[in-house]
């Protein structure tokens, strides 16, 4: 039920007084409500749950905490994936994934 998937905001618009946007999940795009992410702008990342942004990804915090993990894993440099090939359908919420929507 609490599945949340991070995606990139590629469009922001208003619909009947509500802040909406288009969010890109590794190439698959969906409409989402951005009313609860008033501070996010184009290019920002949000966590989407049942069509709503519930959180804005803190990219600085993410980089800082990942650096420690990467060191622990002896990774050479930090290689953050941007838009890699092979998006897994289970990572993309909703009908765009080609299966019955789940409430997760």
């Amino acid at each position, binding site marked *: *039920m*609490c*599945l*949340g*998937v*991070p*995606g*990139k905001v590629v469009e922001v618009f208003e619909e*009947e*007084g*509500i802040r909406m946007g288009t969010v890109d*999940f*590794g190439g698959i795009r969906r409409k989402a*409500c951005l*009313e*609860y*992410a*008033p501070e996010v702008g184009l290019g920002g*990342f949000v*966590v989407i*749950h*049942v*069509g*709503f942004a*519930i*959180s804005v*990804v*803190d*990219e600085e*915090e*993410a980089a*800082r*905490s*990942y650096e420690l*993990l*990467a060191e*622990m*894993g*002896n*990774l050479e440099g930090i*290689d*953050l*994936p*941007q*838009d*890699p090939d092979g*998006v897994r359908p289970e*990572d993309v*919420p*909703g*009908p765009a994934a080609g299966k*019955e*929507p*789940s*409430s*997760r």
Partner: protein
Amino acid sequence: MRFIDEYRDDRIALALVEEIGRTVTRPWTMMEVCGGQTHTLIRQGIDQVLPQEIELVHGPGCPVCVTPLSLIDQAIEIAKRTDAILCSFGDMLRVPGSSEDLFMARAAGGDVRVVYSPLDALEIARRNPDRTVVFFAVGFETTAPANAMAVKQAKQLGVDNFALLVAHVLVPPAITAILVSPGNRVQAFLAPGHVCAVQGWREYEPLARDFGVPIVVTGFEPVDLLEGILMVVRQLEEGRTEVENQYVRAVGRDGNVAAMAVVAEVFETCDRAWRGIGVIEHSGLRLREPYRLHDAELRFPRKQGAASESEVCIAGEVLRGRAKPSHCPAFGAECTPEHPLGAPMVSSEGACAAYFLAGREREEATIP
């Protein structure tokens, strides 16, 4: 995808498993509250690669599993009405009611529609003004802001034929119920990351302090879970009982203030029955007075009928963390995701479904 793939890196995961092994010195029992986390832990076999000292107990964080039977029966009743359309997330359709499920109601001619977002249900209501469109509002704090927005918008736009059948539940009262239950073995919690993305973690601080349990707000990918487990083990070994945050990229202490404000405007807390567990005080949400027009429970009062559960299913014990799914005599035999006896075998977050889908075998065990 960014913010997912890097948290599935097996080199980091293995390093974390090794670090947990170096840190742990004695047995500890911890609970992951959220069913989404249970699925990752079991699917990835994380429970099997951890040091033997660590036992993971699966929590009640599966809204579909804890939605009371009487509400499922009520949803089925509504679905069969010719003047109503029942909209739901897909997971709910196969959840067994007393005698049937929503799939059967649909097969019998009921108008049951699967939606991805409550706003989709609102749109269906606008297109069908002559019928009442009921959205089965199931979920934890994570989902409440979306459902609150749908009702708020319905009121704003005058969509009077839109209603919610509210089955919302809250995590902190459930954690309290587990901690005060006789024979509780849980010594620490992985708190659900997306619930905390909305609520923050202030309300977990008194729990950690008063009950002396470490609580770590944790994400959902394998690396997140392993790091959360490491943080819990460090606290337990050092005798600390704090709330810490592993899921820093998505969660802050104060949560999502804009979302909490709309939830507070639309919903108020109430006592709620949890399937398999019983009534927990102040553990649910219901619509506030100004939104009662949109309350499906008031619009379609429940017909009195006794709700009845399967006699072999041990879902209640599983949801309370007292038994593993593989301990159930029906597991994988009479009870499968196709023919579930209990809700945890249905849901994409149910512990029984997680065990079944990972190919775990039934094992003999006595329920403590």
